[in-house]
């Protein structure tokens, strides 16, 4: 399988991934470049992460004085959020203590709890946890007693979540307004692929000091991040999630036989296709070192030539910063394609078509106010 790095055009306006690939390139920056970098980084939720990378490369001094506060302010917010995430996870642990329910913290929350490089400069919207399906009702009740309540979704969205989704409607804390997403699987029941949540839980790693709280094992963490990214229809934080993957991969790749284990685990969990795309696009955007052997091992799960050519056209657009400067004439079509594709993977046609119809035409006031199941 040929790499698509060569397809990256010199014309690309994407300053964010350019600076993450090559932080030293900021030495050639004009004020107009700084202007564009900050705007793209803000809309991608990556200002604080870029600041972290520049600090690692001793390049903070290179940021012009008038531009520096944007990075510092975002880092202030990110630091505060990391503290808040630790606090919230401890609150969840307390709410569920004594129920002997294994709780797995997913995504950003897990990166913080496991002190991973992927936590650095990361901004959060919510905390995701995974619990066994059989205990979902118990967990929901316990969280409600501790002050989290289901968000005000429309009756349609409520039904949709509870009948078809792999999570219950987001729960928001009455006082702190923090949001938890409670999952019982990493993909909806209706999806093409069914990674076994029991298998994920069986290898989960306990978080020191918080009995009952776990994070996924290194390979599973990467597979979940990849699956989430390539099954999500709206991708508002596509590039941020891709940089998470880049950091997770670089960190985990120091373990012996990492790539062999990762690809084998992907096959075991039916997530080979998602991993294939993840590796292809982290390479494209962020120059993540991925050995050819990994692509070879995923050959059976890889898409055909035509599909791949199409996906390249879609994902090189929708994973770029969601900023006008990175859009071209095909970006709206690419976004629509990604949206439809994600839904196509998540539910069969006899459910998908009525659902998209409802979302397109029967949008109530409440639907548009509340977080939507995508």
């Amino acid at each position, binding site marked *: 399988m040929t790499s698509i790095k060569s397809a990256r055009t010199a014309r690309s306006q994407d300053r964010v991934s350019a600076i993450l690939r090559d932080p030293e390139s900021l030495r050639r920056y004009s004020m107009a470049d700084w*202007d564009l970098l900050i705007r793209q980084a803000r809309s991608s939720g990556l200002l604080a992460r870029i600041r972290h990378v520049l600090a690692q490369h001793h390049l903070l001094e290179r940021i012009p004085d008038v531009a520096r506060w944007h990075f*510092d*302010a975002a880092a*202030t917010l990110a630091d505060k959020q990391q503290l808040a995430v630790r606090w919230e996870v401890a609150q969840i642990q307390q709410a569920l203590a004594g129920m002997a329910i294994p709780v797995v913290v997913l995504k950003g929350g897990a990166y913080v709890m496991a002190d991973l490089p992927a936590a650095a400069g990361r901004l959060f919207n919510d905390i995701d946890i995974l619990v066994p399906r059989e205990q979902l009702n118990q967990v929901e009740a316990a969280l409600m007693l501790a002050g989290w309540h289901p968000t005000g979704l429309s009756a349609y969205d409520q039904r949709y979540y509870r009948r078809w989704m792999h999570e219950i409607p987001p729960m928001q804390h009455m006082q702190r307004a923090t949001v938890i997403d409670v999952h019982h699987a990493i993909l909806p029941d209706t999806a093409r692929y069914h990674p076994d949540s029991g298998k994920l839980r069986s290898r989960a790693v306990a978080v020191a000091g918080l009995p009952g709280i776990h994070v996924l094992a290194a390979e599973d963490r990467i597979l979940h991040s990849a699956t989430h990214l390539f099954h999500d229809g709206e991708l508002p934080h596509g590039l941020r999630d891709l940089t998470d993957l880049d950091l997770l991969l670089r960190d985990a790749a120091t373990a012996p036989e990492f790539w062999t284990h990762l690809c084998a685990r992907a096959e075991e969990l039916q997530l080979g296709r998602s991993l294939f795309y993840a590796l292809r696009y982290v390479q494209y955007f962020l120059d993540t070192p991925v050995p050819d052997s990994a692509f070879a091992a995923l050959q059976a799960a890889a898409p055909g030539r035509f599909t791949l050519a199409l996906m390249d056209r879609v994902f090189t657009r929708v994973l770029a910063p969601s900023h006008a400067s990175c859009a071209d004439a095909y970006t709206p079509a690419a976004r629509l394609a990604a949206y439809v594709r994600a839904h196509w993977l998540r539910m069969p046609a006899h459910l998908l078509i009525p659902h998209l119809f409802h979302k397109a035409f029967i949008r109530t006031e409440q639907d548009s106010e509340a977080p939507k199941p995508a």
Partner: protein
Amino acid sequence: MKLLQLSPSELQQRLSGPGVWLRTGPFSLRVQSRIPSVAKGLVDLYGQFETRDSRHAFADFHVELNAPSTLRRWLRPQVDFSFDGSLPFKPLPLDQAYPMLEWGLNWCVSMHAHQYLIIHAAVVEKNGLAAILPAPPGSGKSTLTAGLVLSGWRLLSDELTLIDRLSGLIHPLPRPVSLKNQSIDVIRGFSLEAFINRASHDTAKGTVAHMRPPRESVRRQHEPARPGWVIFPKWTAGAETVLSPRSKAQTFMFLAQNAFNYSHLGTDGFRVGTTLIEHVDCYDFQYSQLPEAVAAFDRLAATPHDVD
């Protein structure tokens, strides 16, 4: 170059094209709009502010005010505030385009500028010391602020008190002063020098207009000031002018609750807030007559400061 040096057609051309670049206090803006009332508002109120060619300059905030691109524009004309492509607010009636720019700019600063502890308060300065005027809406804060800055006090801000987290100094952001309902006529009657722009009616805050910031305040917009007082104004019909000391602990709690980003700053917010409170005198201030209120403030500025 100052904005007033641009010809009206040049300003119009920039606004509807690459945007008008402006510096307000520590922030630079790029404003784009095809709406005539936005151009008029900028000409009327921002004449003394520095502008540059926006094509070559860095801007902190890129904002745009234009009609939403829906069919509705033909039925009921509206305006959207766009912050670099994202829409933080619902559209408003077109008549409110100019106030929406001001509200939107306040939002830009309060949501992003975490290098400051940002308190929702007006702030004015005399003899090197700043008076912070936090108060709930309806307390006459903006009227008092307008009265003070028309009487020789320097306008630092009428909405956002920016406290530098490193130095503890207050950074000016002397944008136009927002006046609501009766205060528009009160200020017109108070001073012939006041320039107040065209009012927008039926906004969420009633009738709203903006007063041009004094030229001297704009000229000194990069000169920070030391906090001197925190004063809670309360306008009461027919009341005597009374300045009474107020508990520092209570004042701190109020400021923390009325800071836009106190909780984002973690322990540093507490440190900046308590340092501020240690260095200021705190008062409640009741008034009904603006000239008397200004005289009371002048006496306060003339007396040696207790603290420090």
